């Protein structure tokens, strides 16, 4: 998802640490099994801490980079109302990034370090934000599919064993449903419009469908972090389970819009009550993760420039604060 298990260079979770006694690890697992929440200053295995720092910071970076494809359309929204809505939606995403950075900071990593890792390219963010938003219909498709997939992933994270992450996710989930609805609302308008507008909606679905399915991360037999994350109750469902749920709820919505999901093998299975779907192009997924998606370089360049352009503001605020602190002390 926003945390697709992207950073595979990290040591595998569960690496034994010298300072951890089996008793400590066992007592910790007992707390998890009893659905107790772990709080910032509680003892935790180093691998649990590292896994969470990686996941929460990737999630935060995704919210921040995720503002770019939508920001691209702010000045070209078709009406003032749509523009105000899109602005509010994007502002929420900035807020999500901030909630998540502060949740990650409780684990002992500094904000500055996370920002440095994003800008240097060391840290990853969700593959989905490396695709371009080419038409206004893409703004509809992003809200409907990308935020829709995010909701599917984030609702179980509200019950994550780590308290600060779980609380951030509860706050985020309250805001996401507006995001998905505003996207669907854009598509309803286009699908009830001219043939050209409806074709635009279909084209957006054609381009965003598969990348949205990839948001759930590699399939279960490829997913390295899954089992340990499930045992720690960071994750509650596997990638494939969440992907299936997403497909099951989304296909009827596409039908309502009168749009065709771009998967010829898509078929409702009466026996299981689930949709069967075609093979995902995992090579494309790996290419995008490796930095070779349509917009990876552009996204990073824009983020770096925004950070550099803001340097004088940060500096001015700091100097102003220091000057006033000195005055107050005098």
């Amino acid at each position: 998802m926003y945390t697709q298990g992207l950073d595979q260079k990290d040591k595998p979770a569960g690496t034994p640490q010298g300072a951890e006694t089996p008793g400590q690890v066992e007592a910790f697992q007992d707390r998890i099994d009893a659905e107790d929440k772990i709080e910032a200053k509680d003892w935790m295995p180093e691998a649990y801490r590292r896994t969470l720092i990686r996941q929460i910071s990737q999630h935060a970076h995704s919210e921040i980079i995720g503002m770019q494809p939508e920001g691209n359309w702010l000045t070209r929204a078709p009406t003032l109302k749509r523009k105000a809505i899109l602005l509010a939606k994007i502002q929420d995403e900035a807020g999500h990034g901030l909630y998540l950075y502060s949740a990650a900071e409780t684990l002992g990593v500094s904000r500055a370090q996370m920002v440095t890792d994003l800008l240097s390219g060391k840290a990853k963010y969700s593959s989905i934000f490396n695709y371009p938003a080419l038409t206004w219909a893409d703004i509809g498709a992003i809200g409907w599919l990308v935020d829709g997939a995010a909701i599917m992933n984030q609702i179980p994270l509200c019950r994550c064993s780590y308290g600060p992450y779980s609380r951030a996710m509860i706050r985020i989930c309250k805001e996401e449903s507006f995001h998905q609805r505003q996207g669907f609302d854009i598509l309803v308008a286009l699908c009830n419009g001219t043939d050209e507008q409806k074709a635009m909606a279909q084209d957006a679905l054609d381009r965003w469908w598969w990348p949205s399915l990839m948001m759930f991360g590699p399939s279960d037999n490829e997913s390295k972090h899954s089992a340990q994350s499930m045992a720690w109750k960071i994750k509650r469902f596997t990638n494939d389970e969440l992907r299936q749920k997403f497909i099951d709820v989304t296909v009827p919505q596409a039908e309502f819009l009168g749009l065709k999901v771009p998967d010829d093998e898509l078929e409702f299975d009466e026996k299981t009550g689930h949709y069967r779907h075609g093979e995902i192009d995992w090579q494309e997924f790996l290419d995008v993760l490796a930095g070779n998606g349509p917009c990876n370089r552009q996204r990073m360049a824009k983020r770096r420039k925004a950070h550099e352009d803001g340097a004088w503001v940060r500096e001015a605020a700091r100097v102003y604060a220091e000057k006033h602190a000195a005055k107050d002390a005098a």
Partner: protein
Amino acid sequence: MSDKEWPLYEVFIRSKSGLSHRHAGSIHAADDQMALDAARDTYTRRNEGVSIWVVRSSQIVASDPAETAAFFEPAEDKIYRHPTFYDMPDGVENL
């Protein structure tokens, strides 16, 4: 130009009058006023609050989670502090 990190503040929000302030999260800000403004923008975009407290995280004094059991032990064996400890005789009302 130094890019030293702004201090961290903890944010507490009163959601409506009559209720206590409750911890909402944290933000970085250069000074107190900026901390209030940023807390408003970050945590109350949907009228979630009527009052905000911000306090430098470094100013908070907290109990040690490793000492939780010992720290709260004095309250553990005083079950007579709870009204359910007492059996009231039948026929006695309004107690």
